């Protein structure tokens, strides 16, 4: 039998051993977390690059409706390739509020198309009739047609046409540019406004691992 004093000597030894085990375990977890963090960071960074590529290659301004669907497709591809959870939320600056049916029609949805017509010029097309309100849209996308020109640090926006008896308000983010545009009298058609800033689309990127231990969040600004 060991004496009481000898047993007391063993206690610090046990304590030391337990501490070492804890250090090793914590080190292992830290490395595993670092590997996950690297993966999340690389994925987030790559998504940003991809979104900028999509803008530069006109995949978002190719005169097709519902381009926001491409962000869902991109997020699905990243989810499948990396096993991470990816959310991409686009937020276009220009949108319309249709007075006659109360609908808000945003760029990037089925009610809008964007066309890159020249290096610093874009044309935005909107449809004012709304399926969800029981109407039958004609999908001619000319209510209104807006020409957007990037000039230095400003965007010059011109209403080129509005071919509908309906009236709409035109917004840049939360800034009302024109109200009661269109109608049979083609109210405000031909007018131009300049807004401060050249931002056209913001995409929020959110990447996380399924355990929720590592997260990456950023906003890509496209102009």
């Amino acid at each position: 039998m060991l004496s009481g004093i000898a047993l007391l000597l063993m206690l610090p030894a046990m304590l030391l051993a337990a501490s070492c085990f804890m250090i090793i375990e914590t080190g292992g977890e830290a490395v595993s977390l670092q590997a996950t963090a690297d993966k999340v960071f690389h994925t987030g960074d790559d998504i940003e690059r991809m979104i900028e590529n999509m803008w530069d290659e006109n995949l978002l301004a190719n005169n097709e409706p519902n381009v926001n669907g491409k962000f869902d497709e991109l997020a699905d591809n990243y989810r499948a390739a990396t096993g991470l959870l990816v959310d991409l939320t686009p937020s276009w600056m220009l949108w319309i509020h249709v007075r006659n049916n109360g609908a808000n029609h945003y760029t990037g949805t089925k009610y809008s198309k964007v066309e890159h017509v020249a290096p610093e010029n874009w044309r935005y097309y909107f449809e004012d009739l709304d399926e969800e309100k029981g109407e039958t849209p004609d999908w001619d996308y000319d209510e209104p047609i807006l020409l957007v020109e990037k000039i230095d640090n400003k965007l010059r926006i011109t209403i080129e046409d509005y071919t509908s008896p309906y009236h709409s308000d035109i917004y840049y983010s939360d800034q009302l540019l024109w109200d009661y545009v269109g109608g049979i009298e083609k109210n405000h058609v031909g007018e131009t406004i300049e807004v401060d800033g050249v931002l056209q689309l913001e995409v929020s990127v959110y990447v996380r691992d399924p355990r929720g231990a590592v997260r990456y969040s950023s906003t890509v600004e496209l102009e």
Partner: protein
Amino acid sequence: MSFRHDRRGFIFSLDATLAMLVVLIVMTGVARMAGPELTYGQHGYLRLERYANDALEVMELTDAMNIIKNLLAQGEISEAGNLAENVLRKILPGEVQFRLRIGVENNPRLDNVYPSAGEHAEWRAAFENADEIAVAARVSIFPPENVFDSITLYVWRGAMI
């Protein structure tokens, strides 16, 4: 002889010697557990994963990936494979081997890009028998139809074939 009359001091007692022995055994065991194998297990994989991620990043930054994508779009599969092989061989250290796949597993645009041309069966066996494999994945837009597809790079430590 009774311990009560022993005047040699505690450090020379049998109890203390046994206790010190137990302490030393425990400490040696712990020290062995935290040896180089464990350190490699923790950091070696991390380094391997970074090699893979950095290699794909370099391919993007040097425009090599764009050239490979364009070659694939033109149907020049073999040239695309050779270029990918050469670029990755230059980027990755000699003891790190790789397999690159572009596209999904069951219908890839390019697959079986290994560190040397030919000998696919040997490389495939080396890949399947590797102790640990790190993976880096990216998504890219592929011409001419402009669809998304994945790029997957597997790396492992092993000898050149």
